[in-house]
């Protein structure tokens, strides 16, 4: 009688693995940790310090973004939050969209929205003009009082 071939070794090689899902999973965690710091500072500065929410106006924003580090901080926050949020939303779409088609459509919408928001947001942060002027060179109404009059 032949011995059973029950424990014959199987030839195999270690393959390169698709990193997409893992990468996003890690990103979700890393960005989460960084976001905690950023968002808490953001909230604290905007809502808790000084006059809280009522202090926020153009002047407040202008005051902040006058400093380059606030620009950097807010940009990083925007980017991470959007990527983190977008990926999170994409998880949800995957989970809840019933058909292949609706899944593809929703993912596309999400992707476009994310790109638009990120581009828009970064433009705003980086090209911010604390003392905007109109076509004639006059200051727009509402500019901060600190803007130089020339």
């Amino acid at each position: 009688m032949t011995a059973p071939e029950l424990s014959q070794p199987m030839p195999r090689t270690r393959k390169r693995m698709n990193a997409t899902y893992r990468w996003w999973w890690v990103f979700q965690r890393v960005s989460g940790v960084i976001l905690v710091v950023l968002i808490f500072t953001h909230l604290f500065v905007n809502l808790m310090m000084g006059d809280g929410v009522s202090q926020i106006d153009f002047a407040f924003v202008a005051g902040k973004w006058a400093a380059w580090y606030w620009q950097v901080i807010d940009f990083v926050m925007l980017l991470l939050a959007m990527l983190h949020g977008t990926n999170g939303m994409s998880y949800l779409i995957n989970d809840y969209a019933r058909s292949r088609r609706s899944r593809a459509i929703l993912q596309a919408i999400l992707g476009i929205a994310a790109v638009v928001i990120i581009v828009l947001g970064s433009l705003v942060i980086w090209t911010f003009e604390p003392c905007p002027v109109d076509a004639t060179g006059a200051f727009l109404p509402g500019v901060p009082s600190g803007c130089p009059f020339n």
Partner: protein
Amino acid sequence: MWVVHRVTGVAIFFFLVVHVIDTSLVRVSPEAYNEVIGSYKTPLYGLVEAGLVAAILLHAFNGLRVIAVDRWTWALRHQRMLVWIVWALFAVGMAGFLPRHLMHVFGGAA
């Protein structure tokens, strides 16, 4: 807890979208921005804002719990306790924020 994390995540996401759009108005004109921001300074919106902060706090603390659970076996074994800690931190955070915020919203608008 998983549901809470999902719901808060989605809420924050939508807020963030709106928030970026309104902030981008600073590029349009200071007046437009101030106008929109001004409309946020109603008591109703103040409450919405409070809800938003609540969502962020919850999502953040719970997010940290999830990260901890994935990282350390100890946290994994004590995850139930960590859930309570998340709620406790959330309560503390809200206790620190709410009175001040509501004061600004209802009292300090002038």
